[in-house]
C-alpha cells in the first residue's frame, strides 16, 4: 500500500503504541484486500459485546487504551448484555455486572460514545450520502449503504477501532463506486405489500438471501412508502442467509432512483428472481428452531425496537396480562425507553407484566445469563435474533409476528406458525 507521511508516522509509533497498533492492523487488512491507499472516514460503530470478546478481548481493549490512546472519529457502540439501570432487579449475576463495568471504563477511556444501541443512526451517528465510514455489524452496514448511502465494508471490530484511532481505512470494496453496481434483479411486483407484516418482510429476506448470496441485489417494483421497520426487516435478514453489504431498493436507496441507476447504466443482471408469497411462508418454518410449545421468554428488538414498535406492542398488550410463567421483554435504547416513559407506554407495558429493557438486544446479549434464570425457550419477532440466539448461545427459538408474540406472552404457549 502507498501510505501518506502521516500514516507512515503513525506506523512508526510517533503517535504512541496505540496508534502504531491501529496502523499495523489497517495495513495488514488493506494488503489482504488489495487496497492501494487509505482514505479518511467520518464515522465508526463498534459491535462486539462480552459474548464474543470474552475476558481476553476486554484485556486487549485495556492494553490498547494504555498510554491514552483515543479515537479520532465519532464512534458509537452496539448493545451490551443487560439494562444498566435495572441490573439488580433483573437478577443479572454479579460476574456479568463487574465485567460490564470494565468494558464501560475502557470504552470511555478510548473515547467511544456509550450508546449501547444498534439504532445508533437514529440517535446521533448519522452520516450522509457518499461519506466513508466503518460500521461493524452486518445489519448496520447494510442499512448505511442501502438507506443512508454512506459507504462501509463489512469490517470487524479490530478494523473499526483501528480506523477510529487512525481516522483512515483501506480503500476497497464498497468504498469504490465501481463495486456498488447492482448484480441481481429482484422483481417484487408479485407481492401484496398491503397485507405484509414486518415479520413477513424478514421471512422474505431470509428466503432471498440464500439465492442472492454475495451478489448486490436490486429490488424493483417496491412501494416507496415502506416503513423503516419493514425496510430493516428485509435488509437485516438478507445479511443473515446471504452476505450482502449493499441492497438497492429502487425509489428508496439514494443511489437507486431508477433500476438503470442501480445497475450503474446498463441493466445486465447476472440473474433475475421474482419474489413470491410462497417464499415467505416457507421461510417461517426454517427460521424457528424450537419444538417446545411452552415459552419462557417473549422478546422483541433485534435490531432494538423503535418507539413506533414499542407503541404497537403497548397497544396490543393494553388491558391484558402476561402469563405468570412467561416473561415479556422489549429491547431498545435508553432514549427510546425514556421516550416510552414520557409517552405512558412504559406504564402500560409494566401494568401488563412486561418490561422495557434498554442497552441490550434480542440477538445474543442476554443469553449468557438468562439460562441461569431458567430461560430456555424464547420467542423472538426477529429472524436475525432467532439465528444468533440459537447458533451462538444455543437457545430454543420461535419466530413470529409481533401480534403472535403478544398472544404467546398472554397464553404462555407458542401461538404462531409451527
Amino acid at each position, binding site marked *: 500500500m502507498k501510505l501518506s507521511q502521516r500514516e507512515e508516522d503513525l506506523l512508526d509509533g510517533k503517535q504512541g503504541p496505540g496508534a502504531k*497498533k491501529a496502523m*499495523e*492492523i489497517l495495513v*495488514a*487488512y488493506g*494488503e*489482504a*484486500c488489495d487496497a492501494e491507499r487509505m482514505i479518511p472516514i467520518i464515522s465508526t460503530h463498534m*459491535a*462486539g459485546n462480552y459474548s*464474543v*470478546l*470474552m*475476558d*481476553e*478481548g476486554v*484485556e*486487549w481493549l485495556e492494553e490498547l487504551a494504555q498510554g491514552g490512546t483515543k479515537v479520532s472519529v465519532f464512534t458509537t457502540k452496539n448493545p451490551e448484555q443487560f439494562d444498566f439501570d435495572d441490573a439488580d432487579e433483573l437478577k443479572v449475576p454479579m460476574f456479568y455486572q463487574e465485567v460490564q463495568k470494565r468494558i464501560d471504563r475502557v470504552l470511555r477511556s478510548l473515547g467511544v460514545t456509550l450508546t449501547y444501541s444498534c439504532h445508533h443512526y437514529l440517535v446521533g451517528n448519522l452520516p450522509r450520502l457518499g461519506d466513508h465510514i466503518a460500521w*461493524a455489524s*452486518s445489519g448496520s452496514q447494510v442499512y448505511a449503504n442501502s438507506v443512508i448511502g454512506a459507504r462501509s*465494508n*463489512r*469490517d*470487524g*471490530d*479490530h*478494523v473499526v477501532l483501528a480506523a477510529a484511532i487512525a481516522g483512515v481505512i483501506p480503500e476497497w470494496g464498497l468504498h469504490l463506486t465501481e463495486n456498488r453496481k447492482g448484480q441481481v434483479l429482484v422483481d417484487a411486483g408479485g407481492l401484496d405489500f398491503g397485507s405484509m407484516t414486518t415479520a413477513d418482510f424478514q421471512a422474505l429476506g431470509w428466503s432471498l438471501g440464500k439465492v442472492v448470496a454475495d451478489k448486490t441485489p436490486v429490488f424493483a417494483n417496491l412501494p416507496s412508502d415502506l416503513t423503516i421497520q419493514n425496510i430493516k426487516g428485509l435488509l437485516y435478514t438478507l445479511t443473515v442467509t446471504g452476505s450482502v453489504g449493499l441492497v438497492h431498493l429502487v425509489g428508496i436507496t439514494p443511489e437507486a432512483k431508477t433500476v438503470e441507476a442501480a445497475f450503474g447504466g446498463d441493466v445486465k443482471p447476472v440473474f433475475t428472481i421474482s419474489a413470491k408469497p410462497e417464499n415467505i411462508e416457507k421461510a417461517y418454518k426454517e427460521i424457528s428452531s424450537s419444538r417446545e410449545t411452552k415459552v419462557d421468554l417473549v422478546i422483541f428488538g433485534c435490531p432494538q425496537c423503535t418507539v413506533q414498535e414499542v407503541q404497537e406492542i403497548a397497544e396490543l398488550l393494553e388491558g391484558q396480562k402476561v402469563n405468570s410463567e412467561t416473561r415479556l421483554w422489549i429491547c431498545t435504547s435508553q432514549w427510546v425507553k425514556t421516550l416510552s416513559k414520557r409517552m405512558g407506554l412504559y406504564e402500560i407495558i409494566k401494568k401488563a407484566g412486561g418490561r422495557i429493557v434498554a442497552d441490550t438486544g434480542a440477538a445474543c446479549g442476554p443469553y449468557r445469563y438468562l439460562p441461569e434464570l431458567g430461560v430456555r425457550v424464547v420467542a423472538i419477532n426477529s429472524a436475525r435474533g432467532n439465528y444468533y440466539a440459537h*447458533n*451462538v448461545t444455543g437457545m430454543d427459538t420461535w419466530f413470529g409476528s409481533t401480534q403472535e408474540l403478544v398472544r404467546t406472552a398472554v397464553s404462555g404457549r407458542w401461538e404462531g406458525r409451527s
Partner: protein
Amino acid sequence: MRIKGKSVCGGMAEGDALVSKMPISFTGGVDPDTGRVREPNHDLEGQSIAGKILVFPAGKGSTTGSWQFYATCKRGNAPKGIINLKAEGVVAVSAIITGTPMMHQLENNPLECISTGDFVRINADEGYIEVEKKG
C-alpha cells in the same frame, strides 16, 4: 521444497501442517478452550488446530472471528502459523493482533503441495515457506 509467497504478518514458525480444503470461521467454528474445530461437517471437525501450521483456503463467517481467535491464542490453543490461498480481512487481522506468522498467495497451491503431517517452516519476514514431506 521452498515456496515463495506474500507475507500478511511477519515472523517465523515451524511445526506439523494441518490442512483443510474448507474455509474456517473462528466464531462458532473453533472452540477457544480446546482449539478443536466444532463446525458440523467441516473436514477438520473434531481436530485441534493448536500448535499446528494451519493451511486453509481463507476465512469465512462473522467478523467477530478476530475476537475469538485472540481468545483461542491467549488460551494456548492457536496455530503456530497460518497459510492461506488468499487472505481475507478477518484472518489477516487475527494474525496481526496475535503476532501469528502468516503467508498467502504462494507460487504453488499450498492445498496441493502440503499434506497434513508434513513439517512446515514459515519465514514470513523473508517471504517463503519450506515443506518437508512426512515419511
